[in-house]
């Protein structure tokens, strides 16, 4: 069990020592059960830190922001930033290091183990608490969550309201950290790809009908891209204009901007965007599930990324986010890579 006091103690220690610039953790606002990211700079801030099943966010996303901020910073404060990371989040750090976007010393990782459970799925919880308002969610003693509502306390088996991604999680504790809290409890996941397999069993038409129906809902708010720690490109295929422009950028370079797709939220444009996102995350997505969670119209985006994760694993034996030393999925090959699909 992660002891929040230990977490706070460690956070205070590194802040006091001035070892870190600030610490990205979780706090819970007075008026909601859900935790929010918080950027703790003082011991007082640290006292607001929490760790409970509502700590859904992948805070590694803000490591990306920090790199951008640092680029403009004068004078540069090159101290690391502290980050509270779950198992999935920590694998995001590994990928960022693998892609040389950050260096290991840029971050001080306070690892929290999800142990045998994980974080809650807001929509699942909502269904379990119709007609009342949730005030607080806590880890129970054994595989359960204690949910405090306006009309009393509920004891809900974790399995009922845990996020899908946690059901398929292959790293319930951080694979890299500087200070680890909680047990390194190995959990065996018999079916890490069950959600995808269900999808795969559908006939071609069934698959298309499903996705057409889902992607039609997309309003292109790009929350999926914005919340993703791996979507750190300065420019994205869906952007309408060059961001990465300097006074040196020539008119030609600007003219090279390709209009792959329209801004209109039409099925064909939406699917193009999501296909590109899926292929660009192949071998990089660490299944923190943030894209799916952030989506305001509940498109099952994990199902795209998870498919790529599955193929990377099954076709090429590639695991994402465990080893920063090995080459990226798309920048290596094996002589024995399957070629049976080739004529």
């Amino acid at each position, binding site marked *: 069990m992660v002891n929040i006091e230990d977490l706070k103690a460690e956070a205070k220690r590194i802040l006091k020592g001035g070892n870190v610039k600030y610490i990205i953790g979780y706090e819970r606002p007075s008026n*909601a059960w*859900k935790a929010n990211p918080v950027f703790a700079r003082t011991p007082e801030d640290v006292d607001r830190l929490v760790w409970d099943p509502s700590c859904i*966010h992948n805070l590694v996303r803000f490591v990306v922001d920090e790199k951008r901020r640092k680029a403009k910073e004068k004078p540069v404060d090159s101290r690391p930033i502290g980050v509270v990371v779950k198992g999935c989040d920590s694998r995001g750090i590994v990928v960022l290091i693998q892609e040389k976007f950050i260096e290991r010393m840029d971050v001080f990782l306070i690892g929290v183990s999800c142990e045998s459970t994980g974080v809650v799925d807001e929509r699942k919880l909502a269904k379990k608490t119709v007609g009342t308002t949730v005030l607080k969610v806590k880890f129970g003693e054994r595989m359960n969550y204690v949910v405090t509502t306006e009309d009393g306390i509920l004891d809900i088996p974790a399995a009922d309201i845990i996020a899908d991604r946690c059901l398929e999680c292959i790293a319930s504790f951080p694979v890299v950290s500087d200070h680890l809290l909680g047990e390194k409890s190995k959990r065996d996941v018999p079916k890490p790809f069950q959600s995808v397999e269900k999808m795969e069993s559908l006939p071609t038409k069934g698959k298309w009908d499903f996705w057409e129906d889902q992607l039609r809902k997309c309003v292109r*708010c790009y929350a999926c891209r914005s919340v993703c720690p791996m979507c750190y490109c300065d420019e994205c295929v869906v952007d309408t204009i060059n961001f990465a422009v300097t006074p040196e950028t020539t008119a030609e370079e600007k003219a090279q901007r390709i209009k792959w797709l*329209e801004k209109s939220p039409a099925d064909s444009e939406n699917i193009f965007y999501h296909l590109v996102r899926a292929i660009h995350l192949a071998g990089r997505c660490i299944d923190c599930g943030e894209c799916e969670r952030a989506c305001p119209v509940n498109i099952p985006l994990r199902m795209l990324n998870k498919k790529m994760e599955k193929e990377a694993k099954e076709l090429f034996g590639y695991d994402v986010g465990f080893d920063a030393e090995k080459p990226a999925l798309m920048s290596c090959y094996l002589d024995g890579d399957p070629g049976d699909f080739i004529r």
Partner: protein
Amino acid sequence: MDKILAKNDFARWLEALASYRLYAPQNKDDVWTYELIESPDSRGLADVMTAVPAKKIVFPQREELFAFEEGDEAGYALSELLPGEKPTVIFGLRPCEAKAVILTDLVFGGEFVDEYYWKRRNAVTFVGLACLKPPSPNCFCLSVNGSPHGTEGLDILLTDLGDTYYVESLTEKGEKLVKAASDLFADPKPDERTRVMRLHGESEKKLRRSLSRIEDVPEKLKGMFDSPFWDAESMSCIRCGICTYLCPTCHCFDINDEVESSSPLQGRRVRTWDTCQFPDFTMHSSGHNPRPDKAARLRQRINHKFQYFVEVWQNYQCTGCGRCITLCPVGIDIINVVEKVRDHAG
């Protein structure tokens, strides 16, 4: 002229409105949105706050403005594309959303009258549903001069009395809907009227969120343009478009040419939603971006809603629906932000 409609007659009322396109909140994959009604729900209208507001009907995310085609000898043939005017009814609209329509009217009805908007908007009859209990934990309409049973912008206000709806027709448009099936509507008994008054009164006490002394905010904002406050507040913003795309009052758009064929050049000019929260919203082709970071973009969002709009239209550009709070992936809470502005020292 107020009426009473039995809930089990609701479906029949809709049948009588066959000549209209009928929208109502519907649930798909645990998400509520306004969709065309295929088969009326016998339980009547869902008492919910949709994720996507009704603005998508009067101000669609994609609007075709005109088509262009390369003529034989130089020059282009342009053909106007105006939206069709099939009469439409939106049921179950929340009063905050109706108010939002009024605010959007101001924008599209100012010195330049936006024909595309008005063609659609005028074709719509708005049938509201009073919020007897807040449909969202983040409702705060009262704080921004709204009300859970407000009638502003509505043609009809329905109040749920259990087995019946209390029907207030507020405009001719509304009357017309009632007349379309007048036999279904009974005159209310006096006690029903008083009951409605009571429910409306109680509903105002049930809101969980509020934003007091908002009137101080516009002045405060003027002094805070360069405040580091915005950096701190926007730290966790991820620059997605949820807060604005799903805001019933946000109405910014982008205009693009969708080229269908390059020879002969052929295509359409379309307008699509855009948002001040996207970096390319203000990006110049020179590479200069007057709103370079998320701090500037959060500031813009707050300033627009609580300062600029007030200056131009004497209204807050916010009706307290709470969507941006509920749906923000990182929990940025407009109430908290505005309160902090209000109490800001500088």
